[in-house]
Structures are given as structure tokens and as C-alpha cells.
């Protein structure tokens, strides 16, 4: 049995062989602890420093503004928890964020509200899933410590106007964090252009290894660390650094920045073809997210009266690996918060499908996908209709 065609690059990507190559020496040959005084430690520390410089050059920031973490979710946690603990102390208990954020942000916000006394205001999104500057202007107040809005949405691909949103926050002395985990594979993550105080990254979305991430923290930003211990990562994240993975992260990000234009030029026409043909050929279909202002590798839809979970199973069986906003491996499908936030009714919201492309995607793959999808959607509709 051949492996299904992979159309789920937003979930994760394979490690680039060039990335794997630079990681390997740090598993055994140069295995030292970067905190150690001896030469083993020094070699590891040099690799760590170099990785930090590489990341800083892509983000247009200083190396000491890069905090390495174990993943994008941890970066989001450090940003939210770290800033809100300080906010609470300074009598600024409000946190602004949207319902379309990744769970790493929204669930953290909910916990901060429930157990720590943080006040959360949920920013509304427009029908395309974007947080508008108006919504931000309405929400900010003197008691707000932090706003967190993602750069690009993982489920629907919509890109938020981060620079504008951040500027509004700064007028009120509010810190601004953006989760750029999904965006970094294709969008410029220059923090000076974005004007953010914090930015989260996760390496496995751009052909780096899983299990390593970073948080950009603008110099002068006060955060309370949530992992305490040794003084690693400028006192913001205790624990011996995962040197091989950090080296891989930096190399993956460097390659992504270097090859960004050609990667975009490769996936965007394929994505446009998918969006065009799906909307044209499948009755009762809608694009979710913004039609233009979206990630160039990202196509997402809802189909009326379709069980999205079943559609994924049929697609997998037919040889295509995709994803859905209501996907659930335990058979308890519910529309995601993101799809719900768009204001779609349940008969639409349960039938979501996400196709995300990558550098190994080919026109043959998308053609083959497009010639299969319409009949599978029909099959799903037929099955759902006979079930009840």
C-alpha cells in the first residue's frame, strides 16, 4: 500500500534533509551541556549562540531577544502567563485575545481567568476570521496588560493586520504578542515591521524538527518565567537547552527565509487552483477565511450537510491526507471554535476541510485530489442523509 498524498503541511512538515544534516553532530560528537565550563560545553554553547544569531537575523532583532522553548505552545504559554502575572501585579488584569486563536493561547487564557484572576476579553472576528483594528480599539482599556492575536490562522489561513493592531495597543501601553507558528513558513516574520513585543515560533511547521520553538521577547518586556530553575535563556526558561533541535530550528528558519519567495511561488498557484475548482465543482461549498489575505499554501472549506470526519476517513482511504476543523480521532466531532466564530450554522460547520500544501506538493497531486474530492463529498452527503 502506498502512502497517501500528504496535503496537511499546516499540521506538520517533514524535516528537511539539510536540517537533519546540521543537527546530527550535536546528538553525540558535540553533545556537551552549553552551561558547562569545559570545552564540550563551549562547543555546545557556540552552536547555541550561532543558532540564536541566525534566528535573530531572520526576525530582525537582537540574539538576546530570542528565548528557545520546547514548542510553539510553550512559547505562547510563556508569553501569556509571563506577561499576565506581571500585569496582575501592576493592577492591569485584562487580557485581550480572539476566539480564533490556537488552543495554546485560548486555553491558556481560559485557565488564567479561572484560576489566577485574569480578566479575559474575547475580541470578535469578522466573517473571514480576522480581528479588525476597530474591534481592538473598542476593547483596549487602561487595565489591559496584554493583547494576543495570531499572525495567520491555522484552520482558515486568514492573516491578521498585526502591525495595525499592535500600534493601537502600544498607544495604550499594552503589550502585544502574536502567535506566528503557522505563519512563519510563508510570511515575513520581521518583528520591526510587525511592531510586536512578543512572537511565537515552532520549528516543525517549516521543515524543522518537532519539539523545539522560540519566543521573541522585545528587550525591556517584563515576563515572569513559568519554568524556574537554572538561569538558561536569560532567566526566562530554565532547563538544559536541546542543542541539536535548536540548531535544526535555526537552520530550518534560515532556509525558510532564504527560500521564501520560491516556496510561495510554488504553492500559491496550486492553492488557487484548488480553491477555484472546489468552489466551482462542488455544490454547497464555501471558502472559509479570507479569499486573498490568507496563507499562500492554505485552502479551507466548509461543505453543507457533510460529516467532516467521515470525509477525512474517505479521503485517507482514497490516498489523501487532509485535515478538518471538526476532526476528532475519538468519534466525537464538534465544530471547532474557529469555525463557530465565523458564524456558520451547524449544518455547515461540521463539514470543514483543510488542504495545506508544501514544497513537495506537485500539480499531479492536486489534480488527482481535485478529481477525487467531489465524488467523496457526494458520498459523504449520501451516507449522512441515510444515517438519520
Amino acid at each position: 500500500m502506498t502512502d497517501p498524498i500528504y496535503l496537511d503541511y499546516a499540521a506538520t512538515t517533514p524535516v528537511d534533509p539539510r536540517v537533519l544534516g546540521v543537527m546530527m553532530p550535536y546528538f553525540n560528537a558535540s553533545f556537551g551541556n552549553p552551561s558547562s565550563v569545559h570545552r564540550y560545553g563551549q562547543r555546545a554553547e557556540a552552536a547555541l549562540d550561532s543558532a540564536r544569531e541566525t534566528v535573530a537575523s531572520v526576525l530582525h532583532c537582537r540574539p538576546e531577544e530570542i528565548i528557545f522553548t520546547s514548542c510553539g505552545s510553550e512559547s505562547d504559554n510563556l508569553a501569556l502567563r509571563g506577561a499576565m502575572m506581571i500585569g496582575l501585579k501592576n493592577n492591569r488584569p485584562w487580557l485581550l485575545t480572539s476566539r480564533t486563536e490556537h488552543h495554546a493561547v485560548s486555553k491558556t487564557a481560559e485557565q488564567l481567568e479561572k484560576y489566577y484572576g485574569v480578566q479575559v476579553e474575547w475580541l470578535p472576528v469578522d466573517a473571514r476570521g480576522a480581528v479588525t483594528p476597530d474591534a481592538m480599539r473598542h476593547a483596549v482599556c487602561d487595565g489591559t496588560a496584554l493583547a494576543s492575536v495570531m499572525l495567520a490562522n491555522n484552520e482558515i489561513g486568514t492573516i491578521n493586520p498585526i502591525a495595525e493592531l499592535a500600534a493601537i495597543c502600544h498607544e495604550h501601553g499594552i503589550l502585544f504578542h502574536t502567535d506566528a507558528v503557522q505563519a512563519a513558513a510563508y510570511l515575513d516574520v520581521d518583528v520591526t515591521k510587525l511592531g510586536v513585543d512578543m512572537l511565537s515560533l515552532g520549528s516543525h511547521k517549516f521543515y524543522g524538527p518537532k519539539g523545539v520553538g522560540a519566543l521573541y521577547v522585545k528587550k525591556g518586556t517584563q515576563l515572569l518565567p513559568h519554568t524556574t530553575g537554572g538561569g538558561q535563556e536569560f532567566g526566562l526558561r530554565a532547563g538544559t537547552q536541546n542543542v541539536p533541535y535548536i540548531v535544526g530550528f535555526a537552520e530550518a528558519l534560515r532556509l525558510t527565509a532564504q527560500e521564501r519567495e520560491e516556496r510561495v511561488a510554488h504553492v500559491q498557484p496550486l492553492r488557487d487552483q484548488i480553491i477555484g475548482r472546489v468552489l466551482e465543482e462542488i455544490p454547497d461549498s464555501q471558502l472559509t477565511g479570507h479569499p486573498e489575505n490568507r496563507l499562500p499554501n492554505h485552502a479551507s472549506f466548509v461543505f453543507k450537510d457533510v460529516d467532516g470526519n467521515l470525509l477525512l476517513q474517505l479521503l485517507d482511504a482514497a490516498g489523501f491526507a487532509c485535515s478538518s476543523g471538526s476532526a476528532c480521532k475519538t468519534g466525537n466531532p464538534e465544530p471547532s471554535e474557529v469555525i463557530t466564530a465565523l458564524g456558520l450554522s451547524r449544518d455547515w460547520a461540521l463539514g470543514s476541510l483543510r488542504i495545506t500544501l508544501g514544497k513537495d506538493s506537485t500539480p499531479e497531486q492536486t489534480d488527482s485530489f481535485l478529481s477525487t474530492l467531489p465524488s467523496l463529498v457526494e458520498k459523504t452527503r449520501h451516507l449522512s442523509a441515510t444515517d438519520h
Partner: protein
Amino acid sequence: MTKVVVAMSGGVDSSVAAALLKQQGYDVVGMMLRLWSAPGKEDSNRCCTPDSMAQARRVAAKLDIPFYVVDAKNVFRETVVQYFLDGYARGETPNPCLMCNRQIRWTFLLDHALALGAEFMATGHYARIRNSEFGIRNLLRAVDESKDQSYVLHVLTQEKLQRALFPVGEYPKPEIRKIAESFGLPTASRADSQDLCFLAGEDYRNFLQRNAPQLNQPGEIIRTDGKVLGQHNGLASYTIGQRKGLGVASPVPLYVITKHATHNTLVVGTQDELGFSELTARDVNWISGEAPPAAFRAMVKIRYTAKPVPAEVTPLAGGARAHVRFDAPARDVTAGQAAVFYVGEEVLGGGIIE
């Protein structure tokens, strides 16, 4: 490669079914149903606990086959649970597992399997299928009679049997455990329990009280001769043949003989009165697709756990119903349970006892 979907439970039988089919060269896909339980008890449904789901997932990974969980909550609630409630409303003791096999496993899940491109669906049931003349498939008892589950499969039509595979029915249970070991699969059986999965450990009377409170109307307990002995607290709380907990004083032990839903009376009598010499079954399914032309001798099984007893079976109403006359009065004949007719090792059909 021929594709087959295996309905997996995480237990040894369906795991071995998947392993055997894979070994035989099928393109095997694992599926598991997410069934309905009362709100708050979803994770305690015996057929799909998080544990059993994780176990099935591990087995699928071990066998390197795809595995999908299919949401059947709504359809299960609407068919199986409704059937359970309706049965008690009629004063019967329904067997919802029969309905689950017919409507959920062999309709809902089979439709999913076919949509996935499968030609067959397999389960870990202990039963066998044999081809006979004219392309008809016969349903037979399992090789291991002590594990035989053909009783619950008597609801299958030819259309379903053409798609069904029961790989483990060809082996004795100890052999299945050995095969599981040889594949490195878990060897534990799912806890064999008479409890209904969707009750999630709750007493069915509490479930009925909550979901069909109108069924718990007190009424009279009468003796077979019509004498009123006392009050019952809702017919649904009693089963045919029950002796304990009747709450009536009598010099000889009394048993529940029958229940009259229309009059809401519970009829009790002595042990001698307990046996029924005949019964009528409705909604009869004949495995071959056609009722036998005349009355025939058969061994009839009236409950999942009952021993088959000899009887004469007469198809009625073109086969939709059947009359059963036992050679000797049979105990515990319970309306709502199935009577299944065996000739030798073959299941000829069965229906719901009235």
C-alpha cells in the same frame, strides 16, 4: 487487493480477526464505533471506553493498518436506545444488542465500510459463514460452541452475509489467544458482561426511571387464577422467571409468569406454571431469505445464554412470523427476546418473542 473493514473493540477477538485477515492478504482497515451513553457517562460506555479505543489504536498500529473511529451516537440513540425504551413500554424485555447488530454494526457501519471501498466487513464474533448452492450463505455456529455468538447474528440478511466475514469463528477460543500471542497482540477479552453498553454500569431501572418515567406506574400483582396479591412498582422492574423481590406473601415460591402491559398487571404463579409449551415470534428473519415451506424440527434458543431446546417451528404469515411448539414446556420464555432456530449447526432464522 480486496479491502475489508474490521469492526474493532480493542479485545482479543477482533484484534485477531484483523491480524488473520491481514495475514490472508486482505487490505485491512480498522474501525471502531463511538456509541451513545447518557450525558456525563460517555467515557463509561463498555463498548468504547477511552481504554478500549486506545487499545484498538495500538493494535492497528501494531498491524500497520489504518484505524478510524466512526461517530454513531445519534443513530444509536435514535434506533437502539429508542427500541429499548419502546420495548419496555410494550411490557417486553427488549434485547437492544440485536437492534445494534442489525442497525448499527450491519447497516450504519457496513455503509461506512462500503463507502470506504471495502468489499467485506469483519467482526470478532464467534460464528461461521458457509457458501451453499445458488450463492446462498449459511450462518453456522462457531467451532467453539461455548463461545458461539450466532444467536445475535440471526438478524443478518443475505445481503449482509454476502459482505460479512467472521474469521475467529473458525477457531476454538484458546487457539485465538495463542494466535494473538504469536502476533504480539493483547490477549485479554473485553469483560464479558450482560450489562448493556449504553447504561455504562447504571441499573437499567434507574435509566428507565429517568428516560421513561411513565413506565414506572404501580399496578396489581395477580396470581394466574386472577387473585390480587399485592402491588408492583412498575412492570419494567420485573423479568420473566424472577422469584426474588416480588414482595408478596405466599406459602409456595412464586415466579413472574408474564406481564400484561395493557392492564399494567404482573402475573405470578408457581414453578409448575412457569413453563411455556409454545410461543409466537414476530419480525422473523430467515437467513436464506425465504421461509421453509413447511413446519420443521429445530433446536430453539430463547435467550443469549439459554440452552437450545427441541421444538417444532411453523412459519406463519408468509414467513414474517413463526410458531414454536416445544417438546417440553420451556422456562423463561420472555417477550422481547429472540427465539433463534437451529438445525444442526446451522442457524435457519429467528424472531422476537411476543
